[in-house]
């Protein structure tokens, strides 16, 4: 006994697994009710950590292939598991958990764990159950026979010399040397002995006489059977072209085939794979991972086109291509020839050189024996739900047998590990006469490992199914939900390294009903068969497929909204350069003719200038000749703008005035005669001004500003710009390491005000009980956060209790800077207006400012503040505004905290992929809210943003 303390009980979540390492052994710990259990940390089937698994009803489901183990006993409960899990003894002392690796934790064998009752005694002299074909279905059948209580003799005949082994690793890990025949074996020699099976391996059965219930072997030996199970599998389909049997041309079915392919890959440089099915693509994956030049030739127009919709086939193709494999669809192989240097594959799309050719064009089921016995055949052996054939006492299972029921109206075979397991077990139970337990999982399930992804498929897809996509297209995490176009029901799910999706899909199938893409967090993909428009489609639909909004709707905001460069570029195009009014200046910054300032629309530098006629003009700060940002002063006065590089000059309205040497010199050089300066003026923007605030737009037909703002926002705008003439007091400029929208959200989020800004609460300036409002316009893009100052002494004690940092007795030495001179016709002492997309109007009591957002990338923006008072302010009032300015700006008591918080948010997103924000406060409301504890305006903003961005 060696007890090792491994963890504190408090670290174990109920109904979840936790991984620890005990003396180098990975151990998974589980807390079930009040007890703790320990098992080995790794699944007995494949390398997967059970700590990542899913715990339910005392079982743990492996994250990789959904094998289930009983946590208490470690017993393997379903396919694909065959080996039980090691359990360890656990004790708890105090709150500490101890594990003993040398002692098993298994409870004494539970009667329920094994089939109850004595085994059926063997009838002396009775003929054995004969199993013909020693593959995986045979192994499953034999286990089920014994578990079902059959104790009589069982004879196992197999063409291959090996005891039953599973074949999926042959096209993957065996080739890479990560798996061996031993690790693939499903019934070892010792297990055969233990289960009292008489093996006849390497002995071929060539005949059946169903009347006398005998089989005949190659060597002429006859043997009677009580029951006969055919698990004869199949053989690889031959290509039937000249040269398909040349040395260096491989098929894959057996472990010997795999060994030969593995050997050839170790010396080859160029591999051609014929057939782009799952086996072909797995081989391509292995070959390209070994650094071989890999070409896949597929006869059909797209990969997997007979089983999957073309959109999904394309996803598989893109995956392969992104890993360097070359995939040629619509290509038929005509011949394979031997050349001096290797092989030449002649195809309808030209010739391909190869050192090794692998052919994976399907499986021909081995049904000769069944035919001889008179079993009904279709494209395989016809069986019922018990796997019985049409001939008495003959069963069939695995690749050679059809599925017992029609699959989407068709009879068909399922060449999969899961099917071999299910059918084999069903046959075994039926032969044993055990009550047929309902089949575990009615939906066919299949997985393939290729190009670094574990791709699982549940259900029966068809080529014309509709597809809804969740997650990033064609990448890890992509989940394709396929539904029947006529019934709307879910038919299948294909998940790229997303095992959790398979689990939720199972639930979906259990519940049935019409498939709802939105509920599954997926977006329907419109397939377009027209070649021309599908090309267009690929471009325009790129975003909607790559950027899928969370299924919860507006209560979640995905991180890519804030961090993705493509989204940022789209924002410039659709928002800042789209149908919006962008703040560029206060008119009082350019009071006189010739006055100019530099400004920005989105990230784009512009110049705001006042022309001779008094009008204000906005144009890009980019010379039409060679793009130079010609205006270098932040502000000034000019008669014209001259680009210093080649002296091109522009007037105060942005028109091109002069081009030096336009006519050349001495009749040589110069601009062509057709050059018209009027066509080469600076890029000019639409301009509007309201109460001394100047806006510009790239959009030609912008609605008037009043209409753009809407009545609620206009009212607050005009409450601040009340007709007095703004007078500039100065600027703040700072860079913020966050996404620009976070600034809008900060001011559409009244929830943070009393929580982040301790200063406000400490000095009783803003408390949860203040009269306040969060107003949105009808479009959701603009907002005003408003509150009215109240007297701290009048607050009731309940409200005070809610406030984190309210401290009576903390006072300022100079509290007058917090005074409010009520100079506005407004019920509010504070309003923060967010004018989409780039303006904040700050009226924090008497400190006034406009803040201009200049985005510089997804992760950073610049904020330019223009602080102002009004003409007519006396010295005292100006000083009061300046003193109160200590609240705001990059060093403001409140301002610096907002800047820091925005940085923290961006930091939190940058290194953590695929996150999303929770924006749920004030449920059901989108837009104006009468409580501070609300995020309804953020949701309103994203409702607008998504429409503007078409996302």
């Amino acid at each position, binding site marked *: 006994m060696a007890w090792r303390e491994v963890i504190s009980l408090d670290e174990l979540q109920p109904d979840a697994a936790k991984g620890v390492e005990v003396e180098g052994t990975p151990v998974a710990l589980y807390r079930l009710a009040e007890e703790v259990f320990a098992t080995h940390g790794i699944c007995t089937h494949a390398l997967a950590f059970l700590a990542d698994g899913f715990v339910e009803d005392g079982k743990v489901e492996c994250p990789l292939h959904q094998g289930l183990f009983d946590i208490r006993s470690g017993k393997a409960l379903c396919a694909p598991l065959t080996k039980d899990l090691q359990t360890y003894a656990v004790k708890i002392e105090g709150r500490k958990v101890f594990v003993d690796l040398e002692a098993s934790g298994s409870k004494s064998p539970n009667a329920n764990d094994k089939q109850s009752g004595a085994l059926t005694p063997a009838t002396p002299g009775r003929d054995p159950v004969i199993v013909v074909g020693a593959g995986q279905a045979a192994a499953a059948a034999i286990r089920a026979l014994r578990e079902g209580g059959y104790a009589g003799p069982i004879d196992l005949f197999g063409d291959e010399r090996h005891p039953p082994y599973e074949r999926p690793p042959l096209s993957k890990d065996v080739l890479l040397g990560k798996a061996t025949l031993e690790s693939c074996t499903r019934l070892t020699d010792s297990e055969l002995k233990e289960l009292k099976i008489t093996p006849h391996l390497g002995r071929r059965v060539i005949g059946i006489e169903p009347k006398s219930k005998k089989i005949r072997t190659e060597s002429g030996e006859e043997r009677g059977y009580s029951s006969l199970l055919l698990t004869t599998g199949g053989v690889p389909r031959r290509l039937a072209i000249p040269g398909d049997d040349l040395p260096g041309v491989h098929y894959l079915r057996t472990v010997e085939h795999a060994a030969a392919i593995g050997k050839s890959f170790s010396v080859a440089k160029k591999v051609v794979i014929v057939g782009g099915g799952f086996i072909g693509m797995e081989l391509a994956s292995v070959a390209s991972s070994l650094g071989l030049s890999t070409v896949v030739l597929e006869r059909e127009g797209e990969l997997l086109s007979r089983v999957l919709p073309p959109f999904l086939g394309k996803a598989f193709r893109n995956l392969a291509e992104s890993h360097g494999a070359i995939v040629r669809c619509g290509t038929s192989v005509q011949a394979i020839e031997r050349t001096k240097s290797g092989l030449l594959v002649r195809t309808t799309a030209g010739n391909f050189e190869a050192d090794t050719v692998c052919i994976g064009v399907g499986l021909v089921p081995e049904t000769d024996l069944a035919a001889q016995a008179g079993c009904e055949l279709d494209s395989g052996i016809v069986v019922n739900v018990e796997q019985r054939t049409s001939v008495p006492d003959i069963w069939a299972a695995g690749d050679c047998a059809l599925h017992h029921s029609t699959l989407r109206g068709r009879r068909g075979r399922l060449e999969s590990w899961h099917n071999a397991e299910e059918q084999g077990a069903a046959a075994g139970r039926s032969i044993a006469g055990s009550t047929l337990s309902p089949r575990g999982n009615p939906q066919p399930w299949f997985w393939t490992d290729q190009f670094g992804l574990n791709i699982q498929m549940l259900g029966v897809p068809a080529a014309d199914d509709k597809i809804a996509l969740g997650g990033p297209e064609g990448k890890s995490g992509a989940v394709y939900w396929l539904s029947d176009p006529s019934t709307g029901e879910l038919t299948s799910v294909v998940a790229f390294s997303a095992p959790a999706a398979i689990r939720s899909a199972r639930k979906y199938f259990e519940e049935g009903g019409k498939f709802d893409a939105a509920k599954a967090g997926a977006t329907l993909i419109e397939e377009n068969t027209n070649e021309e428009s599908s090309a267009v489609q690929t471009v325009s639909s790129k975003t909607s497929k790559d950027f899928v909004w969370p299924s919860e709707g507006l209560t979640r905001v995905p991180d890519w909204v804030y961090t993705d460069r493509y989204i940022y570029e789209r924002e410039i195009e659709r928002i800042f350069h789209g149908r919006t009014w962008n703040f560029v200046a206060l008119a009082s910054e350019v009071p006189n003719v010739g006055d100019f300032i530099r400004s920005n629309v989105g990230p784009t530098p512009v110049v705001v200038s006042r022309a001779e006629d008094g009008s204000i003009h906005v144009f890009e700060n980019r010379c039409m000749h060679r793009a130079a940002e010609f205006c270098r002063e*932040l*502000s000034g006065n000019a008669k014209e703008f001259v680009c210093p590089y080649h002296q091109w000059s522009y007037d105060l309205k942005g028109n091109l005035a002069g081009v030096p040497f336009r006519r050349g010199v001495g009749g040589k050089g110069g601009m062509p005669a057709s050059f018209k300066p009027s066509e080469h003026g600076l890029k000019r923007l639409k301009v509007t001004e309201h109460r001394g605030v100047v806006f510009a737009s790239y959009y030609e037909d912008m609605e008037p500003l009043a209409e753009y703002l809407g009545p609620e926002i206009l009212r607050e705008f005009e409450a601040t710009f009340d007709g007095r003439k703004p007078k*500039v*007091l*100065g*600027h*703040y*400029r*700072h*860079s*913020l*390491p966050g996404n620009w929208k976070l600034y809008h959200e900060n001011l559409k989020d009244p929830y943070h005000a009393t929580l*982040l800004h*301790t*200063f406000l609460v*400490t000095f009783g300036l803003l408390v949860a009980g203040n009269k306040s409002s969060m107003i949105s316009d009808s479009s959701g893009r603009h907002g005003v956060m408003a509150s009215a100052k109240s007297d701290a002494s009048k607050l009731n004690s309940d409200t005070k209790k809610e406030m984190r*940092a309210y401290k009576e007795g*903390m006072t*300022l*030495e*100079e509290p007058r*800077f917090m005074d409010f001179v009520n100079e506005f016709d407004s019920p509010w002492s504070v309003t923060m207006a967010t004018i989409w997309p780039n303006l904040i109007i700050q009226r924090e009591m008497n400190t006034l400012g406009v803040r201009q957002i200049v985005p510089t990338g997804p992760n950073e923006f*610049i904020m330019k503040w223009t*602080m102002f008072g009004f003409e007519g302010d006396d010295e005292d009032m*100006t*000083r009061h505004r*300046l*003193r109160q*300015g*200590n609240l705001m*700006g*990059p*060093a403001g*008591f409140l*301002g*610096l*905290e907002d*800047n*820091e*918080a925005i*940085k*923290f948010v961006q930091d939190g997103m940058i290194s953590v992929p695929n996150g999303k924000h929770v924006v749920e406060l004030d449920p059901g409301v989108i837009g104006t809210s009468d409580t501070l504890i609300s995020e309804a305006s953020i949701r309103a903003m994203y409702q607008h943003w998504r429409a503007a961005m078409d996302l």
Partner: protein
Amino acid sequence: MLAKNPAGANVDLIGAMLLRYEIEQFNSVYATALDEQRLTDWADMFAEDGAYVVLSRENEDRKHPVGLIYCENRGMIRDRAFALQKTAMFAPRYLRHIISNVQVTGQSAGGEISASANYIVLQVLFDRPDAKIHQIGIYKDIFRRTEAGLRLVQRRCVYDNLLVDNALCIPV
């Protein structure tokens, strides 16, 4: 050189050196108080009517009065010190204030001394590898000699950098 000057000039020069030394010493103490984030000690280096303003060169050149920090007297400076220490939320950081090029520019009849100095503030965020130049500028100072030594009647910190890197959390 010294020996050739008239005796009176030497006395003036020594007086100027001592004053300069005194101001340099003051600035070193000032910088250390800020580097160690002893903001109350920092606030006490101002006279009761001492003004402290941090503003951009852009504003200074255009005669715009707006400051990142705008304190008209020591009460406001103390309020800032108190607010920063007790209520403000910002990421932890180290700062180094480097003060150099001290020049005495004048003395008033009342004994107040005008001076200037260049400053650099280097900032290291605890979780970032590099020190960044957070601010670079000039102090425009007026000192008053008190019983407790020199005190600031005015420090206008005029910074050259156009953009503040996110936020100015600790004074300069």
